[in-house]
């Protein structure tokens, strides 16, 4: 008997119906609330992303760390009473103290001033390289993706070949040819670095180009430039920002790596990679501070960018969230 259980309520229902007041059996009046849809405060994409980012403790730690690092890198060398390059021969290899907060190196230079000066160089290289990558990559990838067809085909073939080159090896080669120095590092890092950004922007543009809302504005006869500015750019922004937060630490790492190999920033100027290389001898001498501070600052900077990048990825691309 299929409905046995459903029907068990039958006797019970008679009993209930008695207890329900008769006056309720009238036509129901429409409640006012129903007419108005529940209005939730509507947040735009960026407000929503910021709300999500703020909830992510790790990403916020990264952001705060980064702000502290940037502030120190800008202001610490200025306000320090010591110069990052001045050698005080009577004050060699001093451990951290009240005068020298991070101690001094083998040439009697103040490590506090030097470390933050080095951090400034690292951050500078990171940001500039990322912005140049962004500039070239967005233009190249944007054109390739938007034009499509033959143009896209040729442009992407070139990118594919460049992408196949071993990145750091090419950078080393360029540094050997151009000679060490800050400006050559940036040129070497961006010479092949923009390729990644171009690929990503192109992929995004290609995808968004075919969305209905872009097709719609094309049918209305909107001009290309306006479509790019109003439709394509805002929608690729999230991915671009995420890519940038990944480019910056990779550029910082590359600079440190090159300076460590002696191909980067040259003495007497300080760079964190160079200082780590100088600090290598600390293993034998026991002057731990010459290695510890620059190494710690590089690692902290990379950490801050990495966790912030992860957080931004989650916040800006809700589709990828889990």
């Amino acid at each position, binding site marked *: 008997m299929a409905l046995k259980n459903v029907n068990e309520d039958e006797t019970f229902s008679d009993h209930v119906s008695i207890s329900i007041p008769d006056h309720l059996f009238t036509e129901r009046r429409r409640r006012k609330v129903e007419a108005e849809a529940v209005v939730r405060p509507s947040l735009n994409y960026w407000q929503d992303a910021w709300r999500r980012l703020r909830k992510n403790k790790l990403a916020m730690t990264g952001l705060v760390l980064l702000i502290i690092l940037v502030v120190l890198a800008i202001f610490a060398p200025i306000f320090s009473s010591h110069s990052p390059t001045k050698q005080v021969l009577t004050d060699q290899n001093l451990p951290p103290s009240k005068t020298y907060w991070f101690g001094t190196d083998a040439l009697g230079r103040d490590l506090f001033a030097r470390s933050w000066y080095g951090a400034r160089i690292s951050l500078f290289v990171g940001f500039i390289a990322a912005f140049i990558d962004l500039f070239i990559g967005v233009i190249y990838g944007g054109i390739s993706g938007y034009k499509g067809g033959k143009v896209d085909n040729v442009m992407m073939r070139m990118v594919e070949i460049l992408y196949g080159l071993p990145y750091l090896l090419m950078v080393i080669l360029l540094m050997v040819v151009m000679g060490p120095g800050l400006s050559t590092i940036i040129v070497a890092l961006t010479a092949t670095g923009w390729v990644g950004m171009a690929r990503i922007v192109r992929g995004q543009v290609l995808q968004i180009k075919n969305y209905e809302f872009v097709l719609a504005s094309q049918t209305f006869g909107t001009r290309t430039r306006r479509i790019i500015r109003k439709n394509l750019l805002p929608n690729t922004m999230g991915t671009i920002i995420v890519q940038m937060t990944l480019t910056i630490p990779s550029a910082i790492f590359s600079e440190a790596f090159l300076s*460590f190999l002696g191909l980067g920033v040259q003495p007497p100027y300080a760079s964190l990679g160079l200082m780590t290389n100088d600090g290598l001898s600390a293993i034998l001498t026991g002057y731990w501070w010459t290695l510890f501070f620059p190494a710690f600052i590089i690692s902290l900077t990379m950490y801050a960018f990495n966790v912030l990048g992860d957080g931004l990825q989650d916040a800006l691309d809700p589709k990828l969230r889990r």
Partner: protein
Amino acid sequence: MVTYILRRFGAMIITLWLIVTLTFFLMHLAPGSPFNQERNTNAAVQKNLMEHYHLNEPIAFQYLSYLKSLLHFDFGMSITQPGQTVNGLLAQGFPVSFELGMMTLVVAVLSGVILGVLAALKHNGIIDYLAMTLAVIGISVPNFIMATLLIQELAVHWHVLPAATWSSPKHVILPTIALATGPMAIIARLTRSSMLEVLTQDYIRTARAKGLSPYKIVVRHALRNALLPVVTILGTLTAGILTGSFVIEKIFAIPGMGKYFVDSINSRDYFVIMGTTVFYSGFLIIMLFLVDIAYGFLDPRIKLHKKEG
């Protein structure tokens, strides 16, 4: 599949040629390079170089003869060490570097995959938290810093392991760890996110609906699909390990290719730089090619897509 391999092979040859050409002409532009006619080497070496690289001939001829010698796997000779050829350096250094690189790759892939899978299976649990903290640290600490820290703590301070050179299996441990931490962290993160995604797929639910055990579902259905993205980054990781070995070999005084390369950079031994760069690039590009082919075999969908496309 055959057309796919052929097309990838063609692209590989073009990239290789591009690298050789780029390296050759860049070396001509370099200040103080022997190609640049500013010679500061001794007469005997100069004579040798003149002959080997045809430095008196027009540049086009030099280029063609360089290509020709590369086809015979002749990578050139040293300026600073008379009589030393790049092939000779490769024969000495490459086996050591290859051993270190392979050890690193195996350690990084195994530990990375295990960490990533555990983290994904215990999503938001304590293992996940620990594994991901480890991974972020692994990505944030550059390999040369990791190397110095390891030497400082384990070799100098605690005397647990030898700090430098390359003579016993014990000597392999520290450099391998220093070099493997970064790639391991990248693999762990990638495996975790890809595993988490695969576990939400419909076919996992199908597998559960068949009554399969969690172990079988993970091993048979989830892992294989989750590892596909890991395979795709193996080529890039190899490149990272290779460049990383430059500094690691220098720090640990390991007599590998990387050490010779760094030495040649410091002494501006242009022919060795050129020869090793070409060799390294060739090695890496062949690795990338092999990884692509392997991917084609692991993912049955690739074959059809490439045929159609």
